[in-house]
């Protein structure tokens, strides 16, 4: 079976600036695929090219085995897009946002109405159907945008930073709905700069930095490849954490010095912490945790994900 999204050497330039610098991607039916990276990594540009609203500068891109340049309308008919900034129609009600959008796909009015009601129930907005968009909370607007992306029963749903700017409770509600979609077999493609989001939702992901893909795999395999099992975070009561780095030599496989803390990459965190104390170092705080995608990113790029 051919991949739903197939990119080889995909490039997007804006003038002199190269936003996407030759990436290879394949997304298989039914998988949840993620682009993880900091702001400016080229995730959104990639998403816009996949959404057929931004022509690639160079390289191969095929969506649903069609050419985005030639078959834009036919491809978009089978995509659902949830953009980074909500662009709901503020002059319409919640329900009308879905029915009107359905009409853009040529869906008959009766079908549009039925589907709108089903989707409003799905994203738990049934009670707000007659309300205007403006008074909705950020989380509700995002859920409505997600519902709108589903109105044409798409083969692929593109989600650009689906939970950026939402409070923790609203995020979990969105994740839960997306997880439900995934269980129904919908192919999800999402970008995020939150590693917890990528770990929660993605079967497979690529880590992007500076327009390039720097790693690829499942969240677990990426962590196994690029990090140790555990991490010890130490904060020393000083302006210059680096001054302590040399005193920690040999404790971990790797040491990362950040402005406010030092990270030790180790197989066993408690053993490592015992060793720190044995060397009579007294950090103001010490934390042992499992390694995550943040650590993978730090290892690959030398920078943190969220600055």
């Amino acid at each position, binding site marked *: 079976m051919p991949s739903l999204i197939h990119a080889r050497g995909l490039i997007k330039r*804006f003038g002199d600036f190269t936003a996407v610098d030759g990436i290879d991607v394949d997304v298989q039916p039914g998988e949840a695929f993620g682009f993880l990276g900091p702001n400016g990594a080229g995730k959104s540009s990639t998403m*816009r090219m996949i*959404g057929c*609203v*931004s*022509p690639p500068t160079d390289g191969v891109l095929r969506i649903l085995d069609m050419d985005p340049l*030639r*078959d*834009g*309308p*036919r491809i*978009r*008919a089978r*995509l659902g*897009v949830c*953009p980074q*900034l909500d*662009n*709901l*129609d*503020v*002059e*319409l009600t919640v329900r*009308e946002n879905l*029915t*009107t*959008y359905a*009409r*853009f*796909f*040529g869906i008959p009015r009766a079908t549009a109405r039925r589907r709108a009601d089903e989707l409003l129930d799905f994203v738990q907005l049934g009670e707000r159907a007659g309300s205007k968009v403006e008074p909705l909370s950020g989380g509700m607007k995002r859920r409505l945008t997600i519902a*709108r*992306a589903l109105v*044409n029963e798409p083969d692929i749903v593109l989600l650009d930073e689906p939970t950026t700017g939402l409070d923790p409770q609203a995020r979990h509600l969105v994740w839960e709905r997306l997880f439900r979609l995934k269980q129904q077999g919908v192919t999800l493609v999402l970008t995020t700069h939150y590693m917890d989001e990528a770990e929660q939702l993605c079967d497979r992901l690529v880590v992007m930095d500076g327009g390039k893909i720097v790693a690829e795999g499942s969240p677990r395999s990426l962590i196994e490849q690029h990090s140790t099992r555990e991490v010890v975070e130490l904060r020393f009561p000083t302006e210059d954490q680096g001054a302590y780095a040399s005193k920690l030599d040999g404790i971990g496989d790797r040491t990362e010095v950040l402005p406010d803390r030092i990270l030790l990459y180790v197989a066993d965190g408690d053993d490592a912490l015992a060793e720190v104390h044995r060397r009579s170092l007294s950090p103001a705080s010490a934390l042992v945790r499992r390694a995550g995608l943040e650590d993978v990113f730090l290892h690959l790029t030398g920078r943190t994900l969220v600055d």
Partner: protein
Amino acid sequence: MLTMVLPKLVSFEGAGRRSASVAERNVTALRSAYWVVMLGGFLEPVLYLFSIGVGVGALIGDIELPGGRLVTYTEFVAPAMLASSAMSGALSETTFNFFGKMKFMRLYDGMLATPIRPFEIALGELAWAMIRGNIYSVAFLAIMVAMDLTTPLRALATFPATVLVGFAFGALGMMTSTVIRSWQDFDLIGAGQFALFLFSGTFVPATGYPLVLRWLVELSPLYRSVDLIRGISLGSVGWPQLIDVLYLLALFAIGLTIAGHRMTKLLCK
């Protein structure tokens, strides 16, 4: 050979339906306040007709047409008000509202994620502006007939001309919206529109202007529209009106082509 032609044919399939769904969105968005605003749009030329046409007209009396025929000042001003109302109706929907939807509401970003293409948005918005503008025109023509400023038959013949004027200015407005950068530029558009309104042979015959100014005025789109509509409603149609029609058709074609092209550039970066 067939495979090279076919995609182009396919790509036009459903364009009309998709454009219609854009206009349909505007119908759905109609709310009570908007209706009143629309009513106001109709009121504007009527108010001008009574203030300048009737009020100031009482100070002026009759006015001589280029052919030498005498008509009352009210008869002279009424077709010009009809033409400028067709202009401002088309422009208000395709400049201020269109720009707001494009830049401020980001409405078209959402639409472009569907099978709709930029050109189809332009066409749909234009169709909507025309529906709105033509309702104004019909109402104003009815008033002209009621006030005995034209005959019912001529009013009937004038209507298609106002439709053409609307399409030409709608395309022009849309083109302008895709070129300007910020809200501040609307002051310029407003000033330009007002200058057209004042000097396009609307309130006085352009024959009264100094020669250079007169040539300039005769090139303006509103002058062409006023000339066409006045010619038909006063029953003095000739070759100049054919030029008017060709001019307005060209304006429409150029405006819409550039608008669609610019929208693709702006929205599909």
